[in-house]
C-alpha cells in the first residue's frame, strides 16, 4: 500500500450528468464518479470485492473489469478506478464476451485457493464471493485435486488436514471481538484500509507476498479498536467474523429494519437485524452524509439492552402491578395535581415529545415542560459518534423545549407531580435527582427497570427505541426516521407517544397523529410528510431552534 491514495468520488444530487455509451446504448450518468457507481446509477451492478465507496481505491481484486476505450482501442480496465468521461464507450458482459470471460477467469483465480467451506461459514448468505460467483463465475474450473491448493495463512497457523493437505489458519483469535479465518481471506485489503484510513490506527496488514500472503496483526498485537467490528461487515468473505454474532443465526433468516443509532446524537444509520421477535445484531446502514458505512462497537452493543432488564408491566410504590393499574394511578394523580412537571427526553422521538407537549396543553397552566440531560458529553470521534449520548437533543429543542433541568431541581418544591419519560435522571446524576424526591408523586415511563423506576412512586413500561417508529433530529440538524422492528418483548407495550396520549385523554392510535401534532406546533417541521424524510433523512434548514 502506498502513502498516497485516492478516495472514490461518489455521485451526489448535484453531480453534473453526462452521456456515456454502455453496450451500444447511450445512458445519462453522474459525470463526477467512477464507472462502478455510474453503472449502478443506471441499474447495472458490477461485481467487485476490494472497492468500497467509503475506502480509498485499491484496485487489487480485478473483479470489476469492463472494456473501455484506451490508447490502443477497446481494452480491459477496472471499473472502480476508471472515471466517467462524457461520451466514453463502455462494454459490460452484456455486449462483450471478453469482459464476461475475464470476470469468470478472475473469479476462478479467486477460488483457486479458497477453502469453499460455505456450509460452516458464518458469512454464507451475505458473502460477496458467493454473490459474485453467481453473477460472474459459474465457469468450469481448472482446479485439480492432484495439483493441490495453497491455502492462505501464517506459517505458525498452518496445519495438515486429514487428507494430508497443507492448510492455512482457522479460528484465530485476532482480538477481543473478532475471529479470523485466514484461509477464507481473499486479500482484498479492505480491512487494512479501514483500520488505516478510517479508524486511523493501522492494526492490520497483509504480510508476505504472492499466494503466501496472509492477513495479520503486528507481532504480539491484537485487533482491538472501538470501530474494529466494521471490518467484519466490509470483509467480503467469512475471514473476519464477529464473536458476538457468529453461529448465532443464519443471515438469510434475518429481517432488516432501518433505524437510527439510539446511543448518540450523530444518529448513525443502522439496520436492526432480527428474526422471530429477537434482535441478533445491529449493522451500519450506509449514509454518505452521516456515518458513511460505519458504526461504533458501542452502537452495535445497544441491541443487547433490548432484552435485558426490561420494564414490561407497571410499578406502584415499588410493587409490580399491571400496566393499566399503573396508568390509572398516573391519570388520577395528573387530574388532581396542582402543579405538574413534565420532563421530556432526547432519548425519545419527536413524536413522543410532541405527545408530551400535547399532554401539557391538556393540563393547561398546571403543567410546565422541562428538558435537558445530565449525561456527560464527550468529544466527537470523527467517525460515527458525536460524543453526545442524547440522540434527539436537537429535536427536543426544535420543539421549543428548553434545557432547564436545573430549574426543575431548584424549584422542585413548587410541584406535586413530576412525570419522566425515558430519561433516567437518578442514573445520570443521583445527587441532583435526590432533590426531586421532594415531589410526592414521581411518575415514570420507561422501557427499562432503571434507577428512576426504582425512585418512582409509579412507573409503567413502554416500547424501547427498536420497537417504535418515529423521527429524531441529529446533531447536524438532519431529520431521520427509525422504523419499528417487530421485536417488542410483550405485545401489550406501547410507544411513549401512545401512553402519553392516553394520559392526555386523546387516545392517538397512529404515530402519524403525533407527527401531525409535532408539525403543527413546530415551524421548521411544518408540512414535512414522512414520505419526504426518506431512508437517508432530510437536512433541515439551518435556521436554528424555534421557540
Amino acid at each position, binding site marked *: 500500500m502506498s*502513502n498516497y491514495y485516492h478516495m472514490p468520488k461518489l455521485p451526489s444530487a448535484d453531480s453534473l450528468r453526462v452521456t456515456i455509451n454502455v453496450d451500444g446504448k447511450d445512458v445519462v450518468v453522474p459525470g463526477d464518479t467512477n464507472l462502478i457507481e455510474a453503472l449502478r446509477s443506471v441499474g447495472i451492478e458490477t461485481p467487485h470485492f476490494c472497492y468500497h465507496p467509503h475506502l480509498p481505491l485499491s484496485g487489487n481484486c480485478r473483479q470489476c473489469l469492463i472494456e473501455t476505450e484506451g490508447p490502443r482501442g477497446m481494452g480491459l480496465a477496472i471499473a472502480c478506478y476508471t472515471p466517467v468521461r462524457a461520451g466514453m464507450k463502455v462494454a459490460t458482459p452484456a455486449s462483450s464476451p471478453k469482459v464476461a470471460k*475475464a470476470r469468470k477467469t478472475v473469479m476462478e*483465480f479467486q477460488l483457486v*485457493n479458497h477453502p469453499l467451506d460455505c456450509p460452516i461459514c458464518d458469512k454464507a448468505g451475505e458473502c460477496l464471493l458467493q454473490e459474485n460467483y453467481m453473477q460472474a463465475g459459474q465457469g468450469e474450473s481448472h482446479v485439480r485435486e492432484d*495439483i493441490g491448493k495453497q491455502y492462505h495463512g501464517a506459517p505458525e497457523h498452518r496445519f495438515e488436514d486429514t487428507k494430508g493437505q497443507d492448510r492455512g489458519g482457522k479460528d484465530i483469535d485476532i482480538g477481543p471481538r473478532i475471529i479470523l479465518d485466514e484461509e477464507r481471506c481473499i486479500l482484498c485489503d479492505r480491512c487494512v484500509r479501514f483500520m488505516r484510513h478510517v479508524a486511523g490506527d493501522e492494526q492490520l496488514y497483509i504480510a508476505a*507476498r504472492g*499466494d*503466501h500472503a496472509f492477513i495479520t496483526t503486528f507481532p504480539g498485537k491484537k485487533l482491538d479498536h472501538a470501530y474494529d467490528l466494521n471490518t467484519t461487515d466490509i470483509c467480503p468473505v467469512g475471514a473476519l467474523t464477529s464473536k458476538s454474532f457468529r453461529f448465532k443465526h443464519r443471515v438469510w433468516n434475518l429481517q432488516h429494519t432501518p433505524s437510527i443509532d439510539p446511543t448518540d446524537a450523530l444518529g448513525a444509520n443502522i439496520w436492526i437485524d432480527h428474526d422471530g421477535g429477537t434482535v441478533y445484531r445491529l449493522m451500519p446502514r450506509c449514509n454518505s452524509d452521516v456515518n458513511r458505512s460505519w458504526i461504533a462497537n458501542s452502537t452495535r452493543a445497544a441491541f443487547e439492552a433490548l432484552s435485558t432488564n426490561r420494564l414490561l408491566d407497571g410499578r406502584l410504590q415499588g410493587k409490580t402491578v399491571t400496566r393499566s393499574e399503573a396508568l390509572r394511578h398516573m391519570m388520577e394523580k395528573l387530574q388532581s395535581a396542582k402543579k405538574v412537571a413534565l420532563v421530556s427526553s432526547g432519548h425519545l422521538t419527536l413524536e413522543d415529545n410532541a405527545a408530551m407537549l400535547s399532554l401539557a396543553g391538556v393540563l393547561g397552566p398546571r403543567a410546565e415542560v422541562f428538558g435537558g440531560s445530565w449525561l456527560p458529553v464527550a468529544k466527537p470521534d470523527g467517525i460515527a459518534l458525536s460524543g453526545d449520548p442524547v440522540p434527539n437533543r436537537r429535536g427536543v429543542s426544535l420543539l421549543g423545549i428548553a434545557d432547564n433541568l436545573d430549574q426543575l431541581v431548584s424549584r422542585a418544591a413548587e410541584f406535586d407531580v413530576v412525570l419522566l419519560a425515558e430519561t433516567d435522571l437518578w442514573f445520570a446524576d443521583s445527587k441532583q435527582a435526590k432533590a426531586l424526591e421532594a415531589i410526592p408523586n414521581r411518575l415514570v415511563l420507561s422501557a427499562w427497570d432503571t434507577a428512576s423506576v426504582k425512585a418512582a412512586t409509579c412507573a409503567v413500561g413502554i416500547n424501547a427505541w427498536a420497537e417504535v417508529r418515529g423521527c429524531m433530529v441529529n446533531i447536524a440538524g438532519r431529520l431521520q426516521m427509525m422504523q419499528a422492528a417487530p421485536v417488542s418483548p410483550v405485545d401489550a407495550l406501547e410507544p411513549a407517544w401512545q401512553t402519553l396520549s392516553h394520559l392526555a385523554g386523546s387516545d392517538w392510535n397512529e404515530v402519524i397523529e403525533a407527527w401531525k401534532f409535532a408539525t403543527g406546533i413546530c415551524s421548521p417541521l411544518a408540512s414535512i410528510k414522512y414520505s419526504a424524510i426518506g431512508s437517508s433523512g432530510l437536512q433541515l434548514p439551518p435556521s436554528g431552534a424555534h421557540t
Partner: protein
Amino acid sequence: MADTSPKVCTVNFGKGAQDISVYKSLGGYSNVGKRLFDLSQFELIDLVTRSGLRGRGGAGFPTGMKWSFVPRGGKPVYLVVNADEGEPGTFKDHFLMLEDPHRLIEGMLICGWALGVRTAYIYVRGEFLSAVESLNKAISQAYAAGLLGANIGGSGYSLDIYVHRGAGAYICGEETALINSLEGCKGQPRLKPPFPAVSGAWSSPTCVNNVETIMALPWILENGPEAYAAIGVGRSNGTKVFSVSGDVKRPGVYECALGLPIMEMLESEQFCQGVIGDLKGVIPGGSSTPVLTTAEASDAKLDYESLAAKGTMLGSGAIIAFNSSRNVVTMLQSLTRFYAHESCGQCTPCREGTGFANRVMKTVVAGKGRDTDLQLLLDLCEGFTPTTICPLAAADAGPIESFTKKFRADFEAAIARNPERAEERLHPNFRPGAFW
C-alpha cells in the same frame, strides 16, 4: 581478438575508474560545467530525444519523451535510478556500478539538470552490497570535488544523491513498486495513471530510469546525439550492455551496438567465444522474454524491432543460452517458481495464478503431469496476462507460453512418465456447475 564494438557505458571497465582522479583523467566530469549548464532544460531534453536513447530497464521507452512528460514549476522533481536489477539473467547494472560509479553520477547530474532535480536516489537491490559501497565511495568523492551538493561548479545548480538499499524483491524493480518501497511502504505496484513522471515519489513528479540508461548520457553529451544515433539500427539507436550467461565459453557483460546478430554475441571471439555443446535455445532479454529456438536464434538480431518481429523482446538484455543437455521442463519450473515467489500478491490473478501455474509445473516435473496440463498452463496465462495491475504476471506468461510451445516434445515426454496422465481428475470441490 580485440573488442571493436562501440563502447558507451563500459568504456572505463577495468581502468580503475572507481577513483575520481582516474575517472577524471579518462575525461570524466569534463562536461559538468559550462558545457552542461549552458544548455537549457529544453535543449537538453531535445538532445536526448535526438539521440534516440531508449530505456534500458526493459520496456525500451524513449527516454527524451519520458522526460518531456515531467511537469515543471510545481512540486519538486525527483530522479530515481533503478538499480534493482532483479530480472533473472541480468547482471549488467551490478557491474556498471562496480566498475564505473562516477559515470552514473555524471549521468544523474545531466538528467538532474534537464529536469530540475534537487534530490536523486539510487535504488539498489539489497544484495548488491559491494555496489552500494562503490557508489557511496564515489558519491563522497564527488561531494568532496564539488560535483554534488550545493552550487555545483558555481553554476547555482544543486543536487544531492542518496543510495537506498532495497530488500531484494524482484517486484521492486517495477517503477511504482520501487517508489512505494523507497517511501517505506510495501513494495507493490501502484495503479496507473498517474504515472511516476507526473506523480511518483511523495506524489511528486519522478523520473525513474535504469542505471544503463543514465550511464549513456555522459557519452551522448560529450559526442553529440547524432553520434549516438548513428550507432545501432533503425529505431534501436546506440549501444546496449548485455549480460550473457549459460552454456557459453565466456559468459559476461558485453556492450555492443544494437542490431548485432545474437549468434555473433554467442560465438564471436570478442564476446562469448562460442557455445558449449549444441545450442538448444536462447532467452534473449531476461527470463520474462519468450525463448528462441536455435533455428530462430540463428538469424535473430539484438535490437528492439528484430526481436519483436520474432515474438520476443530485448528486455533488459540478459541472454541465457542453453544446450541440449539442459532439461527445459525443470528450467521452466524454476522460472515459474521464481514468478510465483516474486508476485507481490496484490492482485488476484497474479497472486493465485502464478502460484497455480507453478504447482502445475511442479507436478509435471515430478512425473505426475497430465495430458491436459499444457493447455491448462496456456489457459492460466491467458487468464492472468490481461487482468493484472502490473506486467509481472505477463512476465510469467512469456516463458510458459514459449517454452511449452517451442519445446513441446520435451514437455510431452515429461508428462508421458505419468501412467495415469489421461485420467480426468477434477477437484471434488469443483465439479462444474456445483457451487462448492
